[in-house]
């Protein structure tokens, strides 16, 4: 009896926060009443115990148990039976503290299911986790002087990309195995990481990353650009490492780095195990549960799901694969049951043959790839996903072309979109038009992702290996009928016609949170909901940018207006000509660095009379600023005030320009010019509030008034305002330019389209009506 055999045992588990691990913990707690669990988890910031509580026990897998025992009973039971131990399989000695070592040493069974399962993991990460992880585990056990039964979870795909039978035998006894030394592979992976890191730090590359960051963010200020640059660099390194993984794996005949590192991991474990008896369990592609803990239960967004969802979104117009090939899917509960059975049985004696079982379906109950695609298409035809406009998306019919052709199609689409997006990025568009740019970017990313799927999963869809299960079935036959009833791992019981449409797909769309219903009529739209949050009374502060957020004007326009007010005839023409001639240089300086631009530009006020400017600025407020204001934006400021929020204007514009806005704001942070003998000297008295200085001004203001930025709102129009927008809990992109529109879309920020009052004159150049005599009171 499996449950009797397991009760009273102490079982250590790695990888318990994963999909398989969570199901395993649940099963053991529920079906082996008296066993003790030692869960080795990476502690994160919160510590191991908290992590077990949050990341494992709160999962809906435990709903049944929780219902049975009641919340208190459940907590009491888990406290009694689970020991959380901080540890990490990528660290020598697993990073255990003395208590952790003692806990591990006390176990009689260890189930190792920690793995880097992502098919595009960087090579060295896959090596550290999948290859060296089990080695470190057995070495630690040896060090502790114990030899518990180790059940190591591997994968069927260690057999490599091959056609035909792949029996339950050690990796290196396969005739197709290319003999490589795992230690050399480890060294090579680490070396490649070092080399790639160095390569990413060459001046040329760093310049490249920096200009990439600027392309993405614009003049966002040095700190933001630096953070972005570093992010791009480390992403570049990871991408190269992932590429190296795929390349190395396929050079040795594996579909990806995961299978490759798992295969070498098996060999390395066998070599390093010493006295520790090791049983290997190799599942195929693990998918949602057939029955336990509940039908369709799944954790995380796994291998097939992104592909299925992309297909249902109409994105994957084609996918490679051999329709008559098998796609080796196995529900998670069958794998869990097999692991339990192996653990209960204990290790085999050396002369019983290799201690390996494969949990798969292809040899006894094959699911043909063509059939799966049919089932998926039928299901999504009946249950379509809905697009933004609430229309059902029709699913495409695949014709199973070769992988190369699909990739080429996608690449072509990708580069067209990329080109379109680049063109869009340089166009001076905002608001609704910029949204088009953001959508283009989103489309391009989707196509790129689809290309990635084809790269990664194409190999699986094309795999025609059939995984032998003689040993698993022998174990199955040896079980009592009661065990067979409660710990079922016989793949023959799966009816694919029921499993796919009734169990798996509903759970996939649920996990993917895709819209399966047209948006309800009269229901609150997303922007309306976000707007309600932004205008909730409990918000603390609303910070506003000025240009293109409250008014459709800028520092150049203000200068042009003030500068031309007292010019006549020819001087006026000359003034305009000079400004127009300088425009390209000014524009490019503004794109590079906003505060440099402001300093440079404000020099023009050198020598201007303070009195004259003060008088003129008052008129300018009406004729230029208010005429070009966005009434809805001003209304929004006023709404924040009415709600009792503090309002703050942060702008690089000059004090005399923004002074008339004072009644709208509790505080104004702006640029100020020095004054000498009643005239401006053209020098800024402090750093103009742009980019990170704007962020700092916001933070300072919040601190000075004891306001919580997480409870605050910021409105701005440009990616250069990112530091300010990112600092608050409720950022709002106002008429965003393309880059910010893209960012806002991705992050789900509220986007407001504030427009000038329709019907107002549009003048190309903001010149003041001529005024040469004194002005009225």
């Amino acid at each position, binding site marked *: 009896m499996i449950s009797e055999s397991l009760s009273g045992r102490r079982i250590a588990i790695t990888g318990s926060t994963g999909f398989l691990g969570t199901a395993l913990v649940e099963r053991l707690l529920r079906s082996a009443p008296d066993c003790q669990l030692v869960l080795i988890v990476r502690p994160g910031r919160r510590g191991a115990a908290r992590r077990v509580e949050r990341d494992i026990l709160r999962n809906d897998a435990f709903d049944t148990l929780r219902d049975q025992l009641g919340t208190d009973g459940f907590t009491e039971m888990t406290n009694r039976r689970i020991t959380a131990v901080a540890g990490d399989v990528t660290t020598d000695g697993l990073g255990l503290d003395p208590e952790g070592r003692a806990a591990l040493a006390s176990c009689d069974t260890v189930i190792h299911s920690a793995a880097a399962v992502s098919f595009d993991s960087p090579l060295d990460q896959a090596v550290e986790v999948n290859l060296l992880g089990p080695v470190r585990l057995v070495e630690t056990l040896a060090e502790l002087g114990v030899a518990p039964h180790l059940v190591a979870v591997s994968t069927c795909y260690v057999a490599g990309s091959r056609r035909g039978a792949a029996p339950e035998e050690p990796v290196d006894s396969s005739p197709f195995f290319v003999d490589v030394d795992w230690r050399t592979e480890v060294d090579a992976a680490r070396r490649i990481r070092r080399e790639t890191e160095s390569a990413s730090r060459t001046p040329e590359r760093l310049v490249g990353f920096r200009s990439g960051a600027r392309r993405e963010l614009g003049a966002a200020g040095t700190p933001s650009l630096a953070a972005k640059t570093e992010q791009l660099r480390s992403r570049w390194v990871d991408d190269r490492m992932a590429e190296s993984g795929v390349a190395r794996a396929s050079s040795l005949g594996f579909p990806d780095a995961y299978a490759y590192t798992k295969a070498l991991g098996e060999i390395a474990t066998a070599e390093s195990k010493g006295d520790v008896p090791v049983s290997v369990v190799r599942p195929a592609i693990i998918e949602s549960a057939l029955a336990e803990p509940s039908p369709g239960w799944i954790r995380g967004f796994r291998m097939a799901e992104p592909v299925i969802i992309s297909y249902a979104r109409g994105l994957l117009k084609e996918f490679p694969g051999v329709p008559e090939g098998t796609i080796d899917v196995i529900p998670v509960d069958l794998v869990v049951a097999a692991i339990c059975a192996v653990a209960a049985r204990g290790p085999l004696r050396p002369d019983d043959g290799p201690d390996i079982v494969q949990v798969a379906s292809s040899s006894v109950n094959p699911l043909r790839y063509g059939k799966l695609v049919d089932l998926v298409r039928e299901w999504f035809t009946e249950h379509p996903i809905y697009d933004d406009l609430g229309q059902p998306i029709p699913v495409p019919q695949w014709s199973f072309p070769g992988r190369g052709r699909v990739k080429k199609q996608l690449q072509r689409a990708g580069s067209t979109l990329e080109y379109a997006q680049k063109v869009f990025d340089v166009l001076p568009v905002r608001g609704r038009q910029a949204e088009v740019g953001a959508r283009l970017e989103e489309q391009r990313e989707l196509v790129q992702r689809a290309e990635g799927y084809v790269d990664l999963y194409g190999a699986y869809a094309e795999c025609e290996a059939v995984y032998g299960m003689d040993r698993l079935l022998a174990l199955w036959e040896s079980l009592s009928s009661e065990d067979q009833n409660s710990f079922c791992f016989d793949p023959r019981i799966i009816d694919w016609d029921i499993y796919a449409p009734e169990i798996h797909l509903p759970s996939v769309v649920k996990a993917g949170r895709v819209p399966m219903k047209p948006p309800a009529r009269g229901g609150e739209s997303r922007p309306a909901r976000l707007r309600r949050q932004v205008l909730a009374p409990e918000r603390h502060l609303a910070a506003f940018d000025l240009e293109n957020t409250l008014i459709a004007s800028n520092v150049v326009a203000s200068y042009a207006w003030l500068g031309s007010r007292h010019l006549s005839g020819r001087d006026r023409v000359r003034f305009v000509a000079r400004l127009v001639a300088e425009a390209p240089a000014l524009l490019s300086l503004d794109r590079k660095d906003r505060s440099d631009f402001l300093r440079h530009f404000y020099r023009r006020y050198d020598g201007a009379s303070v009195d004259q400017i003060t008088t003129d600025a*008052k008129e300018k*407020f*009406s*004729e230029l600023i*208010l*005429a070009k*204001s966005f*009434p*809805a934006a*001003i*209304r929004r400021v*006023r709404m924040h005030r009415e709600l009792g929020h503090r309002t703050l204007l942060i702008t690089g514009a000059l004090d005399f320009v923004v002074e*008339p806005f004072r*009644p*709208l704001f509790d505080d104004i942070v702006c640029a100020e010019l020095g004054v000498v003998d009643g005239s401006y000297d053209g020098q800024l008295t402090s750093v103009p509030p742009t980019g990170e200085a704007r962020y700092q001004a916001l933070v300072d203001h919040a601190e000075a008034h004891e306001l919580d930025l997480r409870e605050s709102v910021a409105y701005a129009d440009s990616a250069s305002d990112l530091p300010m927008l990112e600092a608050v809990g409720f950022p709002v992109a106002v008429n965003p330019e393309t880059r910010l529109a893209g960012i806002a879309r991705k992050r789900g920020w509220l986007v407001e389209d504030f427009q*000038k*009052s*329709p*019907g*107002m*004159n*549009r003048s190309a150049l903001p010149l003041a009506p001529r*005024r040469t*005599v*004194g*002005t*009225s*009171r």
Partner: protein
Amino acid sequence: MTGHLAPRPGFVLDVDRNSPPIVFHHGEGFRLEKLPAGRSRVIYPAEPLEGLPDPDGAIRHALLHPIGDSEPLPALLNPGMKLTIAFDDISLPLPPMRRPDIRQRVIEAVLDLAAEAGVDDVHLIAALAIHRRMTEDELRHAVGDRVYDAFAPDGRLYNHDAEDPEGMVVLGETPHGEDVQFSRRAAESDLVVYVNINLVAMDGGHKSTATGLSGYTGLRHHHNVHTMRNSRSFMDRENSALHASNWRMGKVIQDAGVKIFQIETTVNNDTFGRSGPLALLQKREWEWSTRDRMQFLGMKSGLEVMPTNAKRKIFSSWQAPYALTSVQAGEIEAVHEVTTVNVYKQHLVSVEGQTDVLTMGLPYICPYNVNSIMNPILVMCLGLGYFFNLYRGRPLVREGGVLIMSHPTPWEFNPVHHPSYIDFFEQVLADTTDPIEIERKYEKQFAEDEWYIHLYRNSYAYHGVHPFYMWYWGSHALEHLGRVIIVGGNPAAVRRMGFQSASTLQDALEMASDVVGPEPTITHIKNPPILMADVT
């Protein structure tokens, strides 16, 4: 040319099959509409009366020979006194008149007398109550460059500021409990001279000072739904609760010792000129020459393809060649009696009985969008406020009847002049169009809003409460009418105001018959040039 003949009085045309299509004003454009024969009538304004041959002489004569209980102006002036000259703002006349503006002529005459009397302390105030401030150009146009350059630079010519806490006083309360709020400068002056342009019968009398130099504290007592619904019409002083309140306030002002020398002037109906591009708008359609017809069609189709802003520019540059038809000065009530007679002489047209439907073509301008945009609220105010109320006796349309007006009614606003209008339209009208409800729920909030007050005082914005008054202005019509239809209006903007939009007059008449039954009788009020219907 008709101008050389004696001007003909107003006229009611009964439309028959031979009647030509009628020109409807339609914002910055026109429509030609054929009214149903046999049951429609068109009321034409009188032709322009002849102007006084020597306006400056007439003005001087009026100042020296006052009406009622008043001494001649020179006798009221002495050295060391405080003199305040208040004058009508940009809302009068409509459209603005050609230079020299009547205000300039009158103010120059008054200032000459003041100079002769050795008066030094003179202030000139644009009596705009809670209208927007006048710009330098507008002030120069009204008072002339000479006066402007002499008084504006040192701050003696300025716009009234009803929100200046130092600049306003409450002089007392009427027996009805109405606060009388007044300009402090005017209240503390030894003499206030008020310079009117009495374009319509509503203007002048005690309303000049009691309203023009007041603020929200005073205005709210008569600019409200109750008063407007009981002013039938507000163009007919005897039957206007609005005026009754102003007259009560005038008494309080007098009792407080404020001495006012009232100067009222009337102009003729020469709105579009006897010659020139718009002259045919003053002609009756059946008298058009072939040339007139060609010219009109050319103008109409030209305007149809022109961008709105260009059209606005063209129309707002039009200045009327108004001529002064009378000037009278002295004691307020006596002066106003004479003025009213003179206004009626030009405007009044006798009309018999009411009809089921009233149609009107709304022009590009109303008192509150000079050099600006005629936004939807102003469309409502011009049609349901001003034009509807241009009656004496009873309205031209029966109770429960339908008003059809023609105007593009664009969803457009001038954010400098009408900031509170934008919010009124977006927030208040989105909630309710019922004047009582609006008054109760929103008026105070808008009136006391510090941002609107800031813009009124420092920019060129109408006061925050002004759009409410516009809406109240139409409240008598709203109560009286069964339906309001706007032909050619922006459907969204029209709907927001609780009206219906129709693309043609035919459609509008069809829609009207749902309310008033089939084959309704129709009156078209052909205004401007201005007429006032004397309905029996």
